[in-house]
């Protein structure tokens, strides 16, 4: 794995696009069984009768699929030390079987850390889309090492 990006390489306003994640019914149900066993994430009929209007992925599953795309396309080429958190997440539209997800990412802000002089926080906003519309938006706060750290 080549480390391409360090803290110094990020500037507010930079944009990146990545990911192609095919969402299957089997995976929606598997995630829900493990972590979010509510009827509208487990069963098509129950989904139709809920305010989601059909079987839909758990929001935590949507975040996790976003993380998978981010890790594969981006974080593993970045001197990332993991995240300190997520400022805000909005689940905007249901994610359904057959959706193909992708991320448009923008650097919102970079912040040096007094407690960690060899690293800083890069605030990224992920806008997650399926093939029709935006389905979620998250503001993520990963710690990224400086060059030579």
């Amino acid at each position, binding site marked *: 794995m080549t480390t391409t990006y360090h803290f110094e390489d990020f500037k507010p306003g930079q944009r990146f696009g990545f990911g192609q994640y095919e969402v299957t019914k089997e995976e929606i149900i598997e995630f829900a069984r493990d*972590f*979010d066993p509510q009827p509208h994430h487990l069963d098509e009929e129950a989904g139709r009768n809920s305010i989601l209007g059909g079987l839909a992925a758990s929001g935590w599953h949507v975040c996790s*699929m976003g*993380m998978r795309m981010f*890790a594969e396309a981006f974080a593993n080429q970045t001197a990332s030390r993991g995240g300190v*958190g*997520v400022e805000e997440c909005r689940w905007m539209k249901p994610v359904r079987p057959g959706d193909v997800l992708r991320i448009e990412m923008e650097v919102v802000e970079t912040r040096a850390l007094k407690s960690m002089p060899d690293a800083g926080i890069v605030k990224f906003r992920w806008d997650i889309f399926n093939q029709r519309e935006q389905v979620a938006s998250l503001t993520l706060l990963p710690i990224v090492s400086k060059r030579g750290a």
Partner: protein
Amino acid sequence: MMWFEDITIGSKANLGTHTFTQDEIIAFGKKYDPQPFHVDPLAAKRSSYGGIIASGWHTVAIWMRLMIDFQKSLGGSGMRGGVSPGFEDLRWIKPVRPGMTLTYSTETIEKVDLKSRPELGLIKSRNEARDENGALYMSFIGKGFVFRKPDGATP
């Protein structure tokens, strides 16, 4: 089942505990967060964490699971809802390592009326995971839609 009107600000619940095994940490990491310090014990040892740590998404997904199990344990007295527009201020405060046991909790902190959806209200909650010594590992502000009591409904 509880309507929006039945929920009290300040009510707090212990959701139970979860012990993280190395196998499940790596399994979650391989599926959803394949960074070296979540999936590769050797690489993790050489990282600034000094060993495998759980994905923050894994730590918070366990909150969801314990919350659903808790609601089910209340049977008829659970909330009428289950759909969320998102969350705020999720903090991964300390690394969660194999063998650790965390205790999860939820507290209702705010009730919001929704002009756009008069049949629903929005509940905000403060959610936490702590270790046996009370140290805070994870927290976030959750949001959930709960149905309002229709006119003429019995409790």
